[in-house]
């Protein structure tokens, strides 16, 4: 038998079974309505839970992005200090963080979609529950038990299908957010303990430590390089001006002496 038909029969069987148990259907209208209102509360809580998960993932994405930027700066820093090995380590680390980031991005999109669908589902259920309430008052006021049966059956089957649908949707959302929370919790812990840095890509801390260590000596190195550069720039002039230069120097000295004398 067809899949769509079988699923619809499963939903209908649920309502039929419940209807069979009723003696005076009118008496159960209020009870059912109460349950519907409770379901509505559950759906709204579900929407809030999904929203919380979504926000949490968003915060984690921000934290990860900061870490990624840090690795990037470190890689540049390391390269400018001639440490390609450190730059490589930082970039490897960055790549791993980026893959975690895109994983979170997927989760974020999925939660966002779920949140939107659940919000609409909760509005739909809300409208149906209000309609059911109106209908139940009409049924109670207008019809005898026998007449009411058919009308109640219709209303019940319809509302039961909606409740079943929303119930399933909420359960899926709960399962999904539970899974994500477990993973998000693990990432939170890693980020908080700083273990993510060591755990992912062989030790960011050691990269930073190495960079800091060579930071001071590289300052000295660059100072040295600057001085060497200056000396190198002056050196050819001295060689070049060795012959004529001495005459100039003598002239300058003579000038200076003349100046001193006056």
């Amino acid at each position, binding site marked *: 038998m067809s899949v*769509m038909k079988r699923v619809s029969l499963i939903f209908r069987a649920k*309502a039929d079974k419940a209807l069979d148990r*009723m003696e005076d259907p009118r008496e159960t209208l209020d*009870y059912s309505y109460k349950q519907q209102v409770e379901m509505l509360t559950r759906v709204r809580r579900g929407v809030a839970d999904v929203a919380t998960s979504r926000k949490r993932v968003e915060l984690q994405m921000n934290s990860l992005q900061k870490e990624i930027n840090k690795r990037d700066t470190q890689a540049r820093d390391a390269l400018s200090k001639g440490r390609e090995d450190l730059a490589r380590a930082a970039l490897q680390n960055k790549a791993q963080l980026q893959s975690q980031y895109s994983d979170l991005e997927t989760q974020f999109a999925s939660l966002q979609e779920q949140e939107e*669908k659940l919000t609409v589902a909760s509005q739909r259920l809300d409208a*149906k529950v209000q309609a059911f309430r109106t209908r139940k008052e009409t049924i109670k006021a207008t019809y005898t038990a026998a007449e009411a049966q058919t009308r109640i059956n219709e209303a019940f089957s319809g509302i*039961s299908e909606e409740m079943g*649908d929303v*119930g*399933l949707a909420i359960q899926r959302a709960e399962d999904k957010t539970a899974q994500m929370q477990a993973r998000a919790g693990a990432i939170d812990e890693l980020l908080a303990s700083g273990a993510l840095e060591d755990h992912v890509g062989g030790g960011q801390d050691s990269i930073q430590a190495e960079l800091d260590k060579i930071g001071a000596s590289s300052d000295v190195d660059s100072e040295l390089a600057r001085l060497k550069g200056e000396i190198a720039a002056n050196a050819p002039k001295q060689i070049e001006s060795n012959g004529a230069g001495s005459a100039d120097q003598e002239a300058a000295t003579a000038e200076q002496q003349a100046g001193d004398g006056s």
Partner: protein
Amino acid sequence: MIVRILGEGQFRVGQDAATRLTALDKDLDAAVRDDEAAAFTAALHAAVALVKTSGTPLAADEIATADFILPFSDATIDEVRKLLADGTIPGDSIGLP
């Protein structure tokens, strides 16, 4: 004909779409039977798209029973097989004793 897509409400579809939907439903059935996940997803997505594009959503306060119910648009073949095998809807309650 009224078709529900789980998680997305009910739609009223015309005869034309209903015929095409029946064909897709056969694909769905075969995919579940033969455990063909890719074929299942393809048929489900096609069916969902068909209902959404050619159907008209029922008013939110209209209480009606669907003739056909499509699984969640992102449902896996395992999820649907489980639903069909169990024959019950977990977590539901229509509030009757």
